């Protein structure tokens, strides 16, 4: 019986909720299974949370992790440098989509051009995850703000977000600053969950019509989704300057600026098994790991990009 299986080394991986499926899902080939196969004396234990919470567990709660993997690489330098780590690798990217199911209201009408009109309808309930704890959440805000620019409709953010929550937006020095209070107070029209994946339940159950999700999540759960224009879906490095125009200020005071969605990973300095942690990182960015990412709809960055004091062990797998 596995009660921690003492003779095995435990490798603790704290990861963003959106990585749950490729890392430790129920598929036949996951990072966890493949890595354990490769290193039979290692027991990978995954802990999933929102990306910010994932980092806070290490920095604030005082837990130790051997690998930290988050949905926004920029969180690592912002929250962990220099005390907890001084490097990270960017290993995958993703894009924002609007997920739905065939039971969703107006499912047969929605497309790339009218999605915001449909979300405006009073009988439609949509959701996003908590901007304070999950990058997917603040990215959803960015999407709505960028949509105003793209569709040239200055009411989109107000109608979808500001009028339904305590989140506010304002223009300052040509930057749209979105402020998220601790108490978001969503109205009945929107659902705010801790992690974006949770919203899937709502969609599946029919309580929710639409949800802002990563494309990977939508694919993994077999949802239908509206592909958004590249100008607003935070996927393309080409539009990095456009994305930069929005900034989300979280309740903690931290600010996140719009940027392409790039997953970051590091091994904290206080890890119990730093070498194994590195091995895991190495595995994820190896071609085998990248295949796994790919197979779950999460496009890997090939080769992975390193930043900071990248350890030598990874040097040849990483472009900088």
């Amino acid at each position, binding site marked *: 019986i596995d009660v921690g299986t003492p003779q095995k080394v435990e490798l603790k991986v704290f990861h963003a909720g959106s990585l749950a499926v490729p890392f430790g899902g129920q598929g036949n080939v996951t990072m966890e299974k493949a890595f354990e196969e490769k290193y039979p004396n290692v027991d990978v234990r995954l802990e999933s*949370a*929102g990306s*910010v*919470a994932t980092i*806070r*567990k290490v*920095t*604030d*709660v*005082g837990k130790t992790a051997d690998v930290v993997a988050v949905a926004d690489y920029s969180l690592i330098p912002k929250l962990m440098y220099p005390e907890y780590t001084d490097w990270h690798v960017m290993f995958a990217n993703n894009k924002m989509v609007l997920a739905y199911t065939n*039971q969703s209201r107006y499912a047969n009408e929605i497309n790339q051009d009218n999605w915001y009109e449909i979300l405006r309808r009073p009988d439609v*309930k949509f959701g996003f995850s908590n901007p*304070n*704890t999950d990058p997917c959440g603040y990215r959803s805000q960015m999407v709505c703000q960028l949509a105003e620019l793209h569709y040239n409709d200055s009411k989109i953010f107000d109608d979808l977000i500001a009028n339904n929550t305590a989140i506010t937006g304002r223009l300052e020095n040509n930057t749209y600053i979105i402020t998220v209070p*601790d*108490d*978001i*107070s*969503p109205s*009945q029209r929107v*659902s*705010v*969950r*801790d992690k974006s994946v*949770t919203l899937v*339940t*709502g969609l599946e*159950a*029919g*309580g*929710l019509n639409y949800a802002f999700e990563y494309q990977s999540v939508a694919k993994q759960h077999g949802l239908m989704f509206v592909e958004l224009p590249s100008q607003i879906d935070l996927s393309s490095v080409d539009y990095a300057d456009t994305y930069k125009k929005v900034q989300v200020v979280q309740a*903690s005071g931290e600010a996140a600026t719009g940027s392409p969605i790039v997953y970051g990973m590091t091994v904290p300095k206080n890890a119990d098994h730093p070498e194994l942690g590195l091995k895991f990182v190495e595995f994820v960015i190896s071609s085998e790991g990248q295949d796994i990412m790919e197979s779950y709809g999460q496009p890997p960055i090939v080769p992975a990009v390193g930043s900071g004091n990248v350890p030598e062990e990874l040097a040849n797998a990483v472009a900088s």
Partner: protein
Amino acid sequence: MIEKIKRERMLVAFTLLGFLIIAFIVVTLGNMLATQVIQDLGGLIKVTQDPVVLNSIWLSMYTAFLATLVAFIFGVPLAYILARKEFLGKSLIESIVDVPVVVPHTAAGIALYTVFMHHGGLIGAPLSSLNIVCEDAVPGIVFAMLFVSAPFLINSARDGFKSVDPRLENVARSLGASQWHTFCKISFPLAFRHILTGSILSWARAISEFGAVIFLVSWPRIAPLLMYERFESYGLSTSRPIAVLLIFICLTVFIFLRLASMRWQRHDSD
């Protein structure tokens, strides 16, 4: 003295064993309270002024109260029936009442979500057509709390009614009181101490519920959820003062009601 200890060896051993478990409880709570007060009184004071925290505590207390009220309205009559009547399937009903106590809270949460979800929930859907939304709304919190806390009130009230001699009711009826009047003037007042105790327990159980609520309602945030979020996001130093405050409030209510129920004239037999 020593002779006495020797004579009462068993009781001494029992006392020591018992002391350990009491110490465990006291140390666990006391240590946290003391640590907070000594090391970070400022944090505690700040939390008492944080409207988000206060709102969520208020929400918890208020929904717990509502849940207890509902449990009272529906549970006390049930308790009376269970205490007074013999019928086929009675022990089945009694077991059903106990089921929420043995069902893991998170499993209960999933069950509640299944039933109360907005779309397609067996109860949630009809309710939402009446404009009562449970998912991510106050009614949902109340229902989840009700599910886990009602058994405490029902069982306690049943014991209370059982401790009332049915002959007192018979006499009241022979004196001309209707069944309802007898219930109000005789059975209920005599069982009141038990019902009060049950209500305290039920309220406490409701306010402390976490697992069952969060599936159905993650917003508005009840205090335990806020605490968990704060713990996950910011760690011990941010969440502990909330815990201390919440414990403090719960204990105050508990002690107050306990004293009240002890002072309540003890006309019942035990």
